[in-house]
């Protein structure tokens, strides 16, 4: 072949090699960055850039608003309430009027002093139906707020509520400046420990320490809130030292960070719960004996082990109030197969019962929980048929429609969760539970100003729920979070909402 002769001809062929070498060398220069006095936190940009700095917005920029704004009151680690922007408060005897005294000398980031009118404005902003704020339902008990003088606010309630401060510790209830509704979503002008330097929810949002903060200046000068939507990318960013904190990793990912001197892992107990709920208005679950039997068959510690892994959660006894809540009622519950069988026979199901459980992969946990329940219930003759429906449309077409479905709730204070999910007629009453006794004792608990009596009343509501309700709540979830070892003073394991101003870096 003629072309073969060509091959022997010399070609300057070391040149490209040299070029390649040069490029390779150039590319392999390590990137060096210094970051003293800087905290880099990842978040998932869940609203895809529509994140608003208005703490009451349905698409609030969660991470950032927590450090930009303060609440009237704040929760301490014992579940109690500490003063925040309010230094003290009083309640009227009928528990329908609350008066809060504000902290003098507090200034917004813009320099404007905090006055009672700002609090009034914030509350009315939250209650404004046009805003569609998710806290509106929490605060619905408030009729109106009123400024008595510059530093005194009075709340008038629609009905008695002896625990208003418990509602106001909701991390979304930040205080914004009067008449700032139009600009707040961009300025983030609050009284909080950090000030906004640059708002860039899809990139890097910059926060800088507020030196005049009323609880003392934060220990870290700058915070970068970094958008990383992809879970795996978050893990890799953490492993390669690009960020300092991951809010939540699963049990399996623990292996990546445990026993690694570069990281510190914390396991936090929370009141988040997944569950399976029965519609109490539809057969066979309209029979309280069936509901009871359905709950008696569960081996809760074993379910945690199989569905979550060891340490993935804490056993629950079908109460939505979690052990960290001051109103938690510890009722104790045990698996009792013979009792479950007896109840079923009593209800007329002598050969066991067939039930259809509708679930979906909206939450990874739902499926594994359903499968564990299926095998545990089988021992009592309950034949669970699992129907896995598509994730999209689950919350519309299946949840609150079918008679037995998977569900999930985030941690809420006792009063809030009992009212939102179990009071007759509540819009998210997924068990269609309607029990006058229960509603009545909830009302009474709200009215009761004596804390000891109030506690016993909340315990009573939970007992009614436990005896007759339709919710299977087998456990509360634990959350694992990771910090880079650069962080020298870690938040307490009791803090679900981290106070970043106390955190320091090396």
């Amino acid at each position, binding site marked *: 072949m003629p072309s073969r002769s060509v091959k022997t001809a010399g070609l300057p062929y070391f040149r490209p090699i040299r070029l390649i070498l040069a490029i390779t060398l150039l590319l392999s220069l390590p990137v060096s960055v210094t970051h003293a006095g800087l905290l880099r936190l990842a978040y998932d940009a869940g609203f895809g850039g529509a994140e608003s700095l208005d703490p009451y917005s349905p698409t609030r920029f969660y991470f950032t608003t927590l450090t930009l704004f303060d609440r009237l009151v704040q929760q301490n680690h014992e579940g109690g309430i500490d003063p925040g922007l309010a230094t003290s408060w009083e309640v009227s005897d009928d528990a329908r009027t609350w008066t809060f005294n504000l902290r003098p000398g507090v200034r917004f980031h813009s320099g404007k002093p905090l006055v009672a009118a700002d609090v009034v404005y914030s509350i009315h902003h939250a209650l404004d139906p046009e805003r569609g704020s998710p806290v509106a339902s929490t605060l619905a008990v408030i009729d109106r707020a009123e400024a008595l003088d510059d530093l005194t606010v009075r709340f008038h309630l629609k009905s008695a509520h002896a625990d208003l401060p418990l509602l106001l510790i909701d991390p979304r209830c930040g205080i914004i400046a009067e008449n700032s509704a139009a600009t707040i979503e961009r300025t983030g002008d609050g009284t909080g420990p950090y000030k906004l330097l640059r708002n860039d929810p899809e990139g890097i949002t910059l926060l800088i320490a507020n030196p005049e903060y009323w609880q003392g200046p934060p220990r870290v000068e700058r915070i970068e809130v970094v958008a990383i939507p992809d*879970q*795996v990318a978050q*893990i*890799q960013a953490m*492993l390669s030292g690009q960020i300092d904190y991951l809010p939540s990793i699963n049990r*399996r*990912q623990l*292996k*990546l960070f445990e026993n690694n001197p570069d990281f510190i892992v914390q396991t936090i107990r929370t009141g988040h719960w997944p569950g399976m709920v029965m519609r109490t208005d539809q057969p066979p679950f309209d029979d309280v004996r069936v509901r009871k039997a359905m709950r008696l068959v569960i081996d809760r510690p074993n379910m945690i*082990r*199989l569905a979550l*892994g*060891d340490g993935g959660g804490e056993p629950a006894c079908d109460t939505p109030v979690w052990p960290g809540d001051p109103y938690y009622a510890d009722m104790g519950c045990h698996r009792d197969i013979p009792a479950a069988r007896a109840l079923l026979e009593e209800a007329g199901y002598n050969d066991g019962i067939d039930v259809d459980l509708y679930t979906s992969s909206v939450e990874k946990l739902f499926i*594994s929980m359903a499968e564990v329940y299926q095998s545990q219930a089988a021992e009592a003759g309950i034949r669970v048929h699992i129907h896995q429906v*598509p994730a999209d449309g689950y919350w519309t077409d299946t949840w609150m429609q079918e008679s037995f479905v998977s569900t999930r709730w985030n941690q809420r204070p006792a009063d809030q969760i009992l009212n939102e999910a179990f009071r007759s007629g509540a819009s998210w009453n997924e068990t269609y539970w309607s029990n006058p006794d229960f509603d009545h004792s909830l009302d009474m608990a709200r009215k009761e100003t004596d804390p000891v009596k109030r506690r016993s009343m909340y315990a009573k509501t939970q007992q009614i729920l436990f005896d007759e309700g339709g919710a299977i709540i087998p456990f509360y979830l634990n959350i694992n979070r990771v910090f880079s070892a650069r962080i020298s003073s870690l938040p307490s394991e009791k803090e679900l909402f981290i106070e970043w101003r106390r955190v320091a870096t090396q």
Partner: protein
Amino acid sequence: MIPAADAIRFGTGRSRLAGTVIVFRDIVSRPVGAIGLFLVVFHLLLAVAASFITPYDVALQNADRILQAPSWAHPMGTDSLGRDVFSRTITGGRISIVITLVSAVIAALWGGLTGVSLGLVGGRIDEWCMRLVDAFLAIPGLLFLLLIVSFTGGGVYALIPTLAFFNGISVIRIGRGAAQGVAVKDYITAARVRGHGSRFIVFQEMMPNLQDILLVEWAMRWSWMMLAFSSLSFLGFGATPPTPDWGLMISDSREFLTVAPWAGVWPAIFLSTLIIGINLFADALGKALRVNPQQGVI
């Protein structure tokens, strides 16, 4: 030496079988072809036989054996849910092989037939259809795959028509080019002179010759689709858990690379060797049939 392609081309009956044997020998005689053929056959056999070899249920989770290193019990270790990586890896090609093989056959057939017809018809129709083909090529096919998978809810098998359609578009060009090349050959002219219609010409005379080109094209399309399918699975739009699938397994194990590389490395090796195998095989097939595969051309 008689070129293998000519042997197969003019053979009928027994001699066509002989032609196949010659092509086979030609492929195997090249080291590249032998390796390629071996890899393809190995993976196909494995996909068929996997369920007889798997020591564990591919979906069986075991909370006590999460991310364990390879051992006698689990020769490739376990993944983040405690499933046996060996069982999952050898089964992991099934779905993708079935879907891509079927799609590649359909694509080569419909694209080839359309292309050949256009090449024969020629004129205005051909010209306009080719413009349409060019326009179709500008459509980002991957995006349509994503759209169809996520919005129709038809699951992974909804990919077959879409994959076949978009790949077939690219085959049209090749089929047409080949038909134009062959159309001027003497035996076609002879058939025309004999008074046969164009449909007869296509099926009786040209298809056997074009089948070489389409065969090579099919092999190239197959390898491309394997890549595309694994990308889809990786992005979460292909196979659905707990189905074992290489792309999905790689995606799932990515975060655990630092502590359990085996969970991702094995599927990656299997996936890559299959695609390399198909490519080498297609190369050797092209050489044996004296067809120049249009590598890298959409």
